């Protein structure tokens, strides 16, 4: 009896504990939002449905509908209307202290372009399409542009790129964008770009997992790991694994079945929560707050500048006019953006754009302090300053500045387009 109890105890107790504790944790994080978990609670990411239901004085219902459609990444282009892809980070997607009637910069740009067309008695205007991601890296920017253009050719006639100094610190690619990169036409185009631009060596490094150049990818994800030195045909084998694995549908069904358990269903949120806890621990340990300097490592900067150049070269080769603007920085000190990094960024990006026939607008200082906000003490972040996002009025300011500076270029509808 003793032996039987001992044999049953461990597996049964382990299973029960796993289910009880795991599911309890899952219930706790069911409202976790990865986009806003580490953000100010007053930050709101704009959604299509929310925009649709807005009523903004001075805007017609068709203009509101246009503003809403900007956020529809999969919308089919309207006949005869050039497509403008607007890529940036969460600063182009989210609004601080959102008020009724607030729109994001891409949405305002769409409305203003439509109004300009209407003012010149034209029914044809440029359609704005959002290609932004929170914390988008230059690698992801390139992939997003290539994917938008290659997957559905002609879906990018113009590009507005919000170039963010803070994102020059990152080189990673999230799973969602990685899937884009692995689609055949996109991967082929990235490989062609890499081959035709051998001088941009650093830019090719983050792209290696997708272009199969002297690297291999395992059956899964973005990294070559040590596989970079192994036989390149492992890529074929690796990719062959997933396509010939006849148990893949079964795995999908099992995973779907497992997601009936809360702990499986909330895996992503649980991971996000663990990540947030790690950040909180790190910040407490190292005394890091939102104003702490965050220098851009030279290696990352060099790689990302080359990735930006590769993006511009691609756009030029596809005859896509590009407008780059340097993303606004909060004009106070102390500031996470180190002065020397700002100066370098301010010098390098315009010079790059000039070489590659792209327009570059310096918007680093255009958003005044009053249009930024602080975390309140009530949120447990002790009055820290939010350097990443601004209010609805600032979004409108950015869009209006774009219209003022390059409205003709952005709003131009060429003959024969579509």
């Amino acid at each position, binding site marked *: 009896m003793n032996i039987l109890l001992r044999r049953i105890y461990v597996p049964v107790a382990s299973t029960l504990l796993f289910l009880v504790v*795991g599911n309890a944790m899952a219930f706790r994080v069911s409202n976790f939002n990865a986009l806003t978990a580490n953000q100010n609670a007053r930050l709101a990411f704009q959604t299509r449905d929310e925009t649709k239901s807005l009523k903004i004085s001075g805007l017609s219902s068709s203009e509101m509908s246009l503003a809403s459609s900007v956020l529809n990444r999969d919308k089919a282009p309207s006949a005869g209307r050039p497509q403008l892809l607007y890529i940036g980070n969460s600063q182009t997607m989210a609004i601080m202290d959102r008020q009724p009637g607030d729109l994001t910069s891409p949405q305002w740009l769409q409305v203003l372009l439509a109004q300009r067309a209407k003012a010149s008695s034209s029914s044809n205007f440029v359609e704005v399409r959002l290609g932004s991601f929170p914390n988008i890296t230059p690698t992801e920017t390139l992939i997003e542009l290539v994917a938008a253009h290659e997957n559905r050719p002609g879906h990018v006639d113009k590009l507005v790129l919000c170039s963010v100094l803070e994102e020059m610190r990152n080189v990673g690619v999230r799973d969602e964008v990685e899937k884009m990169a692995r689609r055949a036409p996109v991967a082929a185009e990235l490989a062609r770009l890499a081959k035709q631009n051998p001088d941009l060596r650093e830019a090719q490094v983050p792209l290696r997992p997708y272009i199969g150049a002297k690297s291999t990818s395992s059956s899964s994800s973005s990294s070559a790991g040590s596989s970079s030195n192994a036989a390149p045909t*492992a890529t074929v084998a*690796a990719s062959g*694994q997933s396509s010939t*694995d006849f148990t893949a549908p079964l795995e999908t069904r099992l995973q779907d079945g497992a997601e009936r358990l809360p702990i499986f269903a909330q895996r992503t949120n649980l991971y996000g929560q663990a990540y947030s806890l790690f950040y909180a621990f790190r910040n407490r340990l190292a005394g890091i707050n939102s104003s702490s300097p965050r220098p851009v490592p030279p*290696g990352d900067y060099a790689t990302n500048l080359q990735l930006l150049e590769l993006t511009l070269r691609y756009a030029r080769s596809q005859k896509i006019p590009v407008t780059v603007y340097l993303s606004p920085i909060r004009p106070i000190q102390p500031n996470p953006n180190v002065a020397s990094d700002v100066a370098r960024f301010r010098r390098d990006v315009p010079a790059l754009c000039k070489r590659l026939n792209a327009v570059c607008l310096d918007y680093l200082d255009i958003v005044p302090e009053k249009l930024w906000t602080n975390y309140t003490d009530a949120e447990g972040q002790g009055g820290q300053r939010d350097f990443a996002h601004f209010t609805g009025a600032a979004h409108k300011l950015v869009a209006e500045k774009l219209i003022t500076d390059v409205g003709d270029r952005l709003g131009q509808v060429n003959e024969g387009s579509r």
Partner: protein
Amino acid sequence: MKFQSLTYLLFLLVLWCVSSQVRSIKGRQWVLLIASYGFYATLGWAFLGVLIVSSLVNYVCGQLLIRRNTLTNLLMGVGFNLLILGCFKYLPSFAGTTSDSGLGHLIQTIAFPVGISFWTFQALSYLFDIYRDEELDPTPLEFCLYIAFWPTVLSGPVCRMPEMLPQFRQLVRPNWGDVAAGTHRIVVGLFMKVVLSQLLAKGFNEGEGVIAGFDQASGWSGLDVWTLAIGFGFQLFFDFAGYSHIAIGSARLFGFRLEENFDHPYLSLSVSSFWTRWHMSLSSWIRDYVFMPLATLRRQIWWRQLALVLAMLLFGFWHGATLPFVLWGLYHGVLLAGHRQWQQWMRRSNFSLPAPLAKFLSWGLTFLLICLGWIFFRAQDMNQVAVMLKAVVTLGGYRHLALRPNFYMMMLLVVGGYFLWSALEAMFLRLEKQRWGRAAFTALSPIYYAAALILIVIWSKQQSVFVYFQF
């Protein structure tokens, strides 16, 4: 089908239920072989074809050797195995670097059967053992099962026929101890592979792991390089050792005992000791079938040292036909030869340090030398190797940090946690010998298992990269 998939767990469960109902030895062998072929087929039917053809040809070569044990027959078998290994593994790599012709491109598209290096070496060990007059008489069924045995077919441990054949010939009824031990190993393996290895590889967020660190183009400081080297060493360890735990645990569920593959390698006090604790099944294969035959050709000490270096060169080449891998093997060969010389010098001299200090220094130097070698293993190309090594040896290269603070923190947590756990493990093992200790551990073990499973489930959304899959 990956080891870390729900399908694999279902596969184990179904196979376990079916095989435990089989009452005959031959029947059980058939069940296991069909299951193994089914498992391998999920990677590609063509690959399965290569595996089956290789198994049958090697069996025939073995039979020829049994009938006429001659060097010619041995060389025929060895030649066949080296030929298929060369064609699938090394030829496409050479074609990629040397040829830009249509044929070169065609050769590069040759698919690479997963695990070919492992099961080819198993076949070779069988032929070598017969040549050495080992009494081995597997049936075709037993031989095919030995080669295709699903826990080991993808990435080892590299098994030997004398160990496996008796087990295949027993109708072992897995007892409760086997199931408990096997399950424990699988849980531990999944935790190491899915959680720890991935955490190091990718960090908590994209751009914060070892992978991103190595994929930065330039700008590493000396400290960055050391941290990356240590990080990769542990990523590889958790990944491969985790895989080995799952393989050994899976086999144990069915009553099979496989050779251990890792034994706390980063606690080694010398490079020689490291190679008795890291990828043990392959390092013992190299020792038994390459180093020992080479070393016994001549008596001179210099020849034995050279044999060591040559054996490690082959070890490096086994991993990949590129200069960094070969240099990695050479590096370890030189370290091993150097360590032997040092041991001889120590014996002759009267120099000694207090034991705890000597132990700490030995461990520290071994750890740093091993980790430095991982740069060759992981770097994208020789250019990166050169840049990283330059950062290490340049004093001025320690003045800045190029990698994220998060990366350093995570490394500290994971690597520090590993050494802390290793220290606690030794204490737990001593306590477990006491009766009350055993009872306490049994009572508390559900907490350990539940926590591990919760973390495995959470991290399972991150896609796993198994670094050794390509060898």
